[in-house]
């Protein structure tokens, strides 16, 4: 379990930079279809910003700010967005993730529909990657004990 850092310099710099890192991550996700980057890279940056906060401000602060079950729910929602867009294309008569078919629902040209479809899929990928990165880091730092497992935690402490 990681406690809050004693180093005032690292703590303050992290405090100031975390919002900008998070916005940069969202920028990378949202501009994935124009420039290098995309859902995976942006999601990793977003997860890294949370890991930075966890290293510097400690477990309790991060648990209060981003509860693990909410983040995991976001991960599931990301998968749902990805699969939902793919299946919608399938239902509209195209292939899986054939975004051109979305033009029927969105009432735009097929090219524009492809752009929007990729954006939605990248959003889903970004959510999921962020949630999984955060969850892995959280699990490693807590030694695999989930936040709800207070009883198990106590038993482990009793045993040694």
């Amino acid at each position, binding site marked *: 379990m990681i406690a809050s850092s004693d180093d*005032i310099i690292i*703590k303050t710099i992290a*405090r100031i930079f*975390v*919002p900008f890192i998070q*916005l940069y991550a969202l*920028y990378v996700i949202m501009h994935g279809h*124009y420039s290098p980057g995309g859902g995976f890279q942006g999601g990793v940056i977003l997860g890294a910003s949370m890991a930075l906060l966890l290293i510097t401000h400690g477990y309790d602060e991060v648990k209060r700010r981003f509860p693990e079950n909410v983040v995991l729910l976001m991960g599931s929602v990301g998968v749902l967005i990805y699969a939902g867009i793919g299946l919608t294309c399938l239902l509209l008569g195209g292939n899986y993730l054939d975004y051109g078919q979305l033009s029927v629902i969105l009432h735009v040209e097929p090219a524009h529909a492809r752009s929007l479809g990729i954006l939605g899929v990248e959003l889903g990928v970004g959510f999921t990657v962020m949630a999984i990165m955060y969850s892995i880091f959280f699990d490693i730092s807590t030694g695999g004990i989930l936040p709800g497992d207070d009883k198990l935690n106590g038993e482990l402490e009793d045993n040694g």
Partner: protein
Amino acid sequence: MEVTLFIHAADDAFRILENAKVQAVGLLDTATRLTSETRWMEEKKVQGILKGAQATRSGFQNFFATFVMLLAFWALLSGKFDTFHLSLGVICSLIVAYLSHDLLFANVRVGDGRVIAQRFLFYIPWLLREIVTANFYVAYLALSPRMPIDPQIITFRTKLESDISWVALANSITLTPGTITIDIENREFIVHALDRKVAGDLDTGEMEDRVAHIFMEADHIYIQDVLDVSRVFAALKRGM
């Protein structure tokens, strides 16, 4: 007859005295009430000054300031100003501002932001000049054949009060060649210096004074002085 007259006169005198006493007590009462009222008002004024100095922004002000800064950062990154991308930027900035509005402005007092930004901009050229001169000095140390270095670790206690000013001072020291901030522990700066002259330059405390000026720590001390004087004054008045 004369005796009764005398008794009447004495009665009158008594009554007058009684009246005078009642009036005097009333006057004293009003006087004490007035002083306590004025004292209360003064204390309220002092508390107002204190609160104005220490009040931080409300949650919404923090949120809005963070949102504006993040939106500017987004515009800088994105460079696309059509409605779609701008609305994406607004949504993303709102989300991030909601998640971390209490991270960016943790210890900023009301109304300080613009002054701090302006003073910080004026601080940068001075810091650059310091860096260049220190660069030449370190180059001289490294290039001279005897290499007259005298590495030492110095500690000094800072008068700065907020974490952001500690970090600004520590990073300024690290940016200047020849000195590196190792750690800050309980307001003690632990600094590694390459040479006696470099350490002496740091000991003059000019950099610390300038950082204190940026983050209005001096104004803070000024208000503290006013409070101390007013407390002494109130104690004196109570004594009188």
